[in-house]
């Protein structure tokens, strides 16, 4: 059985591997989520800026707001990798 042949080294290696997968998922899924959010905001922001150039600064700010979610993902990933 697998449990019987698993040594301490193998267990440590698979734990490190799962941590890396978890860190990857945290950043990756957060990135996809923000991307989806930014799609709508970005399209609306472009529409607003095309009509009124003064809105550029505000539109840019709103467009990057969902990036905060990626930062949460990144923090979780860093915690996983370096704790």
């Amino acid at each position, binding site marked *: 059985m697998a449990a019987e042949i698993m040594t301490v080294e193998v267990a440590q290696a698979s734990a490190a591997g799962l941590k890396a997968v978890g860190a990857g998922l945290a950043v990756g899924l957060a990135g996809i989520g923000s991307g989806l959010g930014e*799609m*709508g905001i*970005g*399209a*609306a*922001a*472009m*529409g*607003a800026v*095309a*009509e*009124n150039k003064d809105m550029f600064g505000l539109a840019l700010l709103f467009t990057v707001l969902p990036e905060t979610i990626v930062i949460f993902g990144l923090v979780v990933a860093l915690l996983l990798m370096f704790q």
Partner: protein
Amino acid sequence: MVQNSGGPAPYIYVSTRLRVRKAKLLPPEEYQRMLNMSLPEIIRLIGETEYQKEVDELGTSFEGIDLIEVALSWNLAKEYQRVIELAPGSLKEFTMAYLRRWDIYNVLTILRGKMQGMKEGKIKEVLIPAGSLDRTILDRVLAEENCERVADALKNWKMYPTISAELSEGCAIGSFARLENELYKRLYADLLQIARRGVKGGNQFLKFVQLEIDVKNIKTLFRMRGDGYEEDAREFFISGATFTPEELQQMNQMANRNEVIDALLARIKAKALQVALEDLRTEKSEQEVDTELTKTQLDHMEQLSKINPFSIHPILVYLEKKKYEVVNLRAIARGKESRLPGETIGKYLVI
């Protein structure tokens, strides 16, 4: 040009652009200011708004009221063409279908203008080539002398069968009212057909078309009652929405105004329209009823555009509001030229 690819993004982009454009339209207080100004002051003010480009371009060829008329028409046509370019996917088809009403307006303006012996240049000033008939075709129609040749020039127009059937009679009696009725009935039948074809977003377009038919029918009903028209009026009503022409004809024959309003309220579902109909229980002039219903239609469209933010509704609200901005500016300019008092002109404005 925005294509229908990339999910909802093109719809969001276009809806936002048109919302910003709608926000740039003249606010109500600006009309109130204009009512207290003289014609040259109004021209100067219009020249400082979104119409600046047209006023500057045409300033050398026209002046006074003519300059306003041409600048407003050019701007409206340009704006409509721009919206067609922007609209993505099926929304483009709906927008183009909606704008086909300007073909009817242009053809009837030319026919009526010619019947009254107006000069070609004068007729051309008020044409708005926003539909499927472009300037070249309209110029050809404008250059034709008799009715048969006008019909020939419109051979490729979608509504040619209707115009060829009705035009000769209209020319013979010198009135195009019947032709106008038939053209609008055909237009609404086409719009309903397009909306019901099962294309994505068609349901929203259907809501708009049915609302418009309802409002048009109710306006016609009140006009007829105002004029005391008691004969068979079924041909003046448009079918395809809440009421059939037969039901509206029955309402036209009812003796009491309240009875008519009750009959309408029993079937109308739109809240805004219900409130407006309740308001009509007190006697009002035809003009007031008309303006009231138009405002209600715009309010209801505005609500629909908020319920469905990325549909055809934001586009249609902008197109309609832009049209009424031009109508209002034209009314103010014409009224000022005729030296009408501000309060009288104010009654004709849709604010």
